């Protein structure tokens, strides 16, 4: 019974997946695709909402629960991220209902929910094998989803690339993890952290093995969160996938992967962090990630400038954003982690909104090149206004939530060494990049508002789409004007992360 209560969310989603498939098989096979995509979407979103509400109602009573011998943890912090993941899934489902792009509709929603299940497991995992299972569940569902755009060769191409890179990165991650296990005899993150902390410095004979392990784990995680130089799959997968799937990969998957990256690095590997400060640079993953952050931000933004396809441009922008997030990870303080969490949540809803607008508009105009968005300010003023909110938030313009995300991350990076300004160099790179990025974000606004449209017929958008996007926009504006509640809430939640090394 206890176990049932602990896994309630996951069980509900799993049961939902099978009922969804059954409903489609029994009642909806004969209906046309547009109707099926609507009714099944409605069913799936109700399911997610119900799960979210149940999780929320139970949330007040939850303190920390460990299950499966410490492999699995449920505490208010994890619960919060589960809610965020459910919200992301809900919005993804809502924007998927705009137009069918496949005839396998119940399978599509089922895979989205499987991926959701993978993320729900992932944020609860505190042990290497559990992380592996959850990550694979998530990734395999996403590989298939990328290929779901029927009759579009780019979609299959993107899926194959994503699969090859993803499988390779998993093997990197687990090769590294196996070394860690070999050295310490433990797979639990907290035990690993204790083991690494107990090693005398310099590390002695374990040292070279430890470096191999750390390097392989970093490479594996780097692929999952798509940072330079492990980003090559991202633009192709993002461009090829059906747009709602792109939205899901770039928000849900990124959020869950970053969450687990933080857990692995800060719970287990903090003792071999070294230092990213310019005065004592080197000696561990923090220094390497600082370099990765610099390249991610710079390359992501520079390449985004030259893109002609909006989804590709947003793909490169998301690589750059992963770089900004890494700045907070590198800060590796309590405040740094709080800032990363804040950034992740805000970024997820902003990016979802942006891809939602792309879905809505490209479903009507039949393309997702930037030129296809010309004159949308006249053709669909509401969607354009929403897009402007999302784009400006991504660009980090106050008073939108994206600005506070960046502000908080940079503030905590300088706060790592407040008197010596040891991380100022990274912040300067970040701020400079933020200024550069504005150029291509403004290019999108320019297409929508300044360039004259080829046609002038107004675009109609379904109510669900407008609802989903307005929710995202409200969130982005609301968190911009009142960032305080979420910031302080995340600060209290952080006490559930066993960060004894910080």
């Amino acid at each position, binding site marked *: 019974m206890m176990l049932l209560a602990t896994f309630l969310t996951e069980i509900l989603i799993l049961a939902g997946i099978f009922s969804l498939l059954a409903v489609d098989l029994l009642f909806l096979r004969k209906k046309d695709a547009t109707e099926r995509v609507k009714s099944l979407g409605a069913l799936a979103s109700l399911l997610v909402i119900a799960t979210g509400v149940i999780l929320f109602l139970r949330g007040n009573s939850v303190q920390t629960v460990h299950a499966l011998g410490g492999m699995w943890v449920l505490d208010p912090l994890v619960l919060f991220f589960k809610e965020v993941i459910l919200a992301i899934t809900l919005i993804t489902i809502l924007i998927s209902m705009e137009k069918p792009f496949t005839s396998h509709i119940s399978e599509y929603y089922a895979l989205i929910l499987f991926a959701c299940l993978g993320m729900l497991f992932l944020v609860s995992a505190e042990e290497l094998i559990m992380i592996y299972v959850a990550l694979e569940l998530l990734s395999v569902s996403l590989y298939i989803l990328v290929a779901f755009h029927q009759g579009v060769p780019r979609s299959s191409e993107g899926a194959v690339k994503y699969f090859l890179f993803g499988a390779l990165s998993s093997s990197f991650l687990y090769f590294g993890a196996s070394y860690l296990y070999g050295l310490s005899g433990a797979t639990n993150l907290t035990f690993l952290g204790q083991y690494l902390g107990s090693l005398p410095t310099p590390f002695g004979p374990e040292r070279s093995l430890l470096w191999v392990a750390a390097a392989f784990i970093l490479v594996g995680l780097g692929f999952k969160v798509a940072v330079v130089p492990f980003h090559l799959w991202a633009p192709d997968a993002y461009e090829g996938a059906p747009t709602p799937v792109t939205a899901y990969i770039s928000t849900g998957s990124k959020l869950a992967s970053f969450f687990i990256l933080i857990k692995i690095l800060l719970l287990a590997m903090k003792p071999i962090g070294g230092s990213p400060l310019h005065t004592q640079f080197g000696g561990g993953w923090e220094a390497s990630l600082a370099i990765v952050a610099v390249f991610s931000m710079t390359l992501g933004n520079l390449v985004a400038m030259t893109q002609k396809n909006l989804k590709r441009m947003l793909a490169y922008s998301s690589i750059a954003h992963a770089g900004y997030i890494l700045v907070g990870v590198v800060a590796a303080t309590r405040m740094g982690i709080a800032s990363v969490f804040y950034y992740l949540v805000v970024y997820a809803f902003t990016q979802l909104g942006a891809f939602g607008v792309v879905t809505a508009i490209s479903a009507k105009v039949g393309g997702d090149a930037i030129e296809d968005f010309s004159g949308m*300010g*006249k053709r669909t*003023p509401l969607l354009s206004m929403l897009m402007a909110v999302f784009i*400006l938030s991504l660009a980090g*313009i*106050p*008073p939108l939530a994206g*600005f506070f995300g960046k502000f908080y991350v*940079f*503030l905590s990076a*300088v*706060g790592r060494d*407040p*008197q010596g*300004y040891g991380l*100022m160099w990274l*912040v*300067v790179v970040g*701020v*400079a990049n*933020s*200024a550069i990025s*504005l*150029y291509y974000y*403004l290019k999108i*606004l*320019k297409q929508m*508002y*300044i360039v004259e449209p080829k046609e002038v017929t107004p675009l109609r958008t379904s109510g669900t789409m407008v609802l989903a996007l307005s929710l995202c926009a409200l969130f982005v504006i609301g968190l911009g004007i009142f*960032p*305080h509640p979420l*910031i*302080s809430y995340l*600060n209290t939640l952080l006490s559930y992360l066993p960060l004894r090394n910080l």
Partner: protein
Amino acid sequence: MNLLSGTFWVSLAGALVILLLKKEAHRAIKWTAALTGFIALSLSLLAYFHYDLAFGGMQFILKRPWIPEFGIDFHVGADGVSLPLVLLTGFIFFTGVLIAWNIEDRPKEFFILFLTLVAGVFGVFVSLNLFLLFVFYELAVLPMYLLIGVWGSTRKEYGAMKLTLYLLVGSALIFIGMLALYFKSGIQSFDLMKLSEVRFPTNFQKIVFPLIFVGFGVLGGLWPLHTWSPVGHVAAPTSVSMLHAGVLMKLGAYGCFRVAICLLPEGATFWLPWIAMLATVNIVYGSMIAMVQRDFKFVIGYSSVSHMGFVLLGLASMDPVGVSGAVLQMFSHGIMTGLFFAIVGRMVYDRTHTRDLNELGGLSGPLPFANFCFIMSGFASMGLPGLSGFVAELQILLGTWNRYPILAALSGIGIVVTAAYILRVLHKVFYGELNEKLHHLEPITTVEKVAGIILVSQLIFIGLFPFVMTNLIYGTVEPLIRRLFP
């Protein structure tokens, strides 16, 4: 209600009301905008007259926690430096709406952006928290991109992009400086009043001062980072040029003073002589370039560069008289250049559809009111006694003379050339032979006359009764400068 934050909230509320109006309801939209402008102007006038001169210092203070974790409050207040600028914003806001009365293309979006921009400007002038100031600063800069890009003319996309990128690179510098100040102060607060009591180490000041000063200086038109300004002014629609040259560039100069000079006086002592040289280049270079323009609007654009040079020179003088001259010059130039752009864009260009000085001529016949306004603002620009420009520039030169006599003398060249280009334009546009194509011009409308008269009356009023402003400004600046540069 707090009078000062009222100006900001009213503008924002106006934008929200317009957001809810139907986009076809052009009249309702314009009236809402005008009413908002009128209320904001009245509030700023009220604040101006309620300021207690005997008491001095910051008044109308309102402080509410916003993000207490980082020492960020919604903290507003005003002294003799910010009040004239709030008042200026009120005037330009109201007259700007009047000048935009004939807008036909998507007025709803136009006025929403316009009012948001104004809200940001009011916000900057009344912020007493550095973070809040930064947020308002960006809020004021960004709508400009769309206002120029959508409703502008003459290479509008280029102008809009250049302007936005320049200004946001500037704000990136400010952002870095802001973080540095936050941590170095050791008080974990962005409160400007508290930060001004912290004595930062000298070397730190020398590094951070140029970051912040140049960051704001980009918006203030500091040479050689001014190039966005004439291009942007020319590309912008008339009422936006008014706001832009009239108020927005003052944001830059205000930030230079309020943040860079007030918080980092030792950095200022080290760097300001160099800044003063750049400002002198502003004055002389701007006026000389204005002299050779063929485009009427470019003349005014470069004249702004030149006049902002005086503001920066005054600020760099580190002298109570010079700095208060700079503040008065901000007000005076704001009104004057607002009037200039109203004349060029609305009264002349909208009727003649050319801004080429060689094609214009003899407009004093068909457009006597435009001619009158141009004479008044032109004479103020030349620094003729009896108009506001004279009082301001005189104070600046007096203040500068003590510290940089050579620069003060050089900037005299600027004044002479200014007289030359104003007279040249006056001659080319309003006198001489009337071009045949320009015989049947629509007369100046009442709305335009109201706007023109409001602005002209300010130029004359301040010119004749300068003490109304100078008492207030000097009363604040004098103790402040004495404390900063003992």
